[in-house]
């Protein structure tokens, strides 16, 4: 009896292996996301949809898994190690920290990395790596602000000094702003809970507030909208998706379309293209997005041009 059961069990095992082989899952893509956050979640959704557009459908012919490091660096390291051992076709790092944790494995030719939502790609090792930055050129954005608000003199920026992405942007803004005759008023806020106070202080001191893809600030959007509305000054963002939340205008991509483009890059690698021939890309398609009601509230006239 026992041996029959054993045989049955073995047969079951073999048959289940057979079934697994029947399915045409050919490629394996593993995504490590630095933290759960609306903007980054949108990027990851975009990656999945981008892959699907190129014919790699999740659970159909693509084995795709997502892990979140929950903002924890040592967890990101363990996830990267686990992924590297599973012999994936491509690993994806969403966010700087997640992408960096693959650095050791790309250097040993163990994995191929495609990153997304990294503002400063120089932070990531170049070997076996390509990806999609979320850096939006700052000059056109400032031009747009000037157009909407010709008397813009003092531009306030709220950012988290703990976010590499934001610090890089603030440093660039510091050099560019004088060309536009704009004084940059910086306000660092390390935590979402401190945003209301800082936003209120900043709103009293400048003609407009700008948030550039700062995850902390985007999480506390409503506090900033409130502060800006109270002083009747406009709030500008770089993520077009944030305009619906009460910002006046944005010139940029949304995080979702950055994900879609990254997904298409991953598909290229899956198709067999050499990863070294795929250059790191910056968002090409930028849209102007304007929120009429928010503009009226802050006294900005919008003409169609």
């Amino acid at each position, binding site marked *: 009896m026992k041996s029959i059961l054993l045989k049955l069990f073995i047969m079951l095992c073999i048959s289940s292996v057979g079934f697994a082989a029947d399915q045409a899952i050919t490629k394996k893509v593993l995504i490590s996301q630095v933290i759960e956050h609306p903007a980054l979640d949108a990027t990851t959704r975009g990656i999945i949809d981008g892959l699907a557009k190129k014919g790699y459908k999740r659970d159909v012919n693509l084995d795709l*898994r997502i892990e*979140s490091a929950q903002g924890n*660096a040592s967890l990101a390291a*363990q996830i990267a*190690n*686990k992924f590297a*051992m599973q012999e994936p076709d491509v690993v994806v790092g969403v966010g700087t920290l997640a992408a960096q944790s693959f650095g050791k494995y790309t250097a040993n030719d163990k994995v191929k990395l495609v990153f997304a939502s990294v503002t400063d790609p120089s932070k990531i090792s170049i070997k076996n790596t390509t990806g999609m930055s979320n850096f939006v050129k700052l000059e056109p954005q400032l031009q747009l602000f000037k157009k909407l608000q010709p008397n813009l003199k003092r531009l306030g920026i709220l950012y988290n000094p*703990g976010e590499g992405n934001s610090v890089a942007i603030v440093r660039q803004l510091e050099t560019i702003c004088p060309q536009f005759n704009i004084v940059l008023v910086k306000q660092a806020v390390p935590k979402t809970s401190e945003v209301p106070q800082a936003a209120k202080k900043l709103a009293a001191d400048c003609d407009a507030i700008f948030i550039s893809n700062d995850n902390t600030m985007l999480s506390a959007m409503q506090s900033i909208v409130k502060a800006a509305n109270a002083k009747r000054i406009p709030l500008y963002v770089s993520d077009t998706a944030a305009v619906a939340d009460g910002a006046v205008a944005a010139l940029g991509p949304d995080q979702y379309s950055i994900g879609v483009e990254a997904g298409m890059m991953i598909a290229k690698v899956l198709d067999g293209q050499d990863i070294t021939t795929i250059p790191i890309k910056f968002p090409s398609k930028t849209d102007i997005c304007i929120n009429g009601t928010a503009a009226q509230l802050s006294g900005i006239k919008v003409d169609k041009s």
Partner: protein
Amino acid sequence: MSIAELLFSLELGMIFGIVAIGIYLTFRVINFSDLTCDGSFVLGAAVSSILLKSGYNPFLALFAAVFAGVIAGLCTGILNIYFKVTAILSGILIGFMLYSINLKVMQGVPNLTLINETTIFSGYNPLVILAMVSLVVWFIMSYFLVTNFGLALRSTGQNSLLSTTNGVKIEYMTMTGLALGNACIALGGALFSQHQGFVDISQGIGTIITGLAAVMLGEKLLPFRSPWIMIAACFLGSFLYRILVSYALHSEVLGLSTQDLNLITGALIVFVMIIPTRKIQTC
């Protein structure tokens, strides 16, 4: 779970084992609930990274990190002893202030890469290097705790009244314990950043949880009072913690997803904690 993942857990286990020793020194040896660690972990990483970036020897960078940890610990001690701030609050305050200090040390950049720098791991197997560093730390710390001075240090945490009557200066002992503890944590941070090839300002989040869990797991597995074994238990507990995290990362077969990870890791730790063991043996 593959062998490679097990070995990686061992590597991370050794790094965080050194952190656990730091936690053990403050929470257990001198009985001081020190929450400076989230800050001092990053401080060590920041100091070591910035020195590496300026071209200094990676071992020198480790020593500098240790020194920075000592200063952080002393600050907490000074707040507690001379300004009578409660233990928990002084730790939290220094840890909180260290966030800004760390940003200053990293020259305002919250994330530094060490891809092109020579670290203590370049060209060697990280497992071997970490084993050597861990052995050295284990020997120094254990030996220190069995000296007369170490005995006095341990006595302050066990029974401060008794040690005062025997002429032990509690203030100095608390300062020493805090300095040594945070030195270990900063060393762990420096090793982690060199191992991973980058330092991030948010790296210290959860250091206290990881460290305390490792200490408790170690105490559970090796219930002895000898410092030699207690320090080794920190490494063992930390290794076990990393294996549990590794297991939790494989929980997708159970239909669980990433946001359940903390829950699973926590549940596994609780499970290990409630396994009955024998009473503490004196030896």
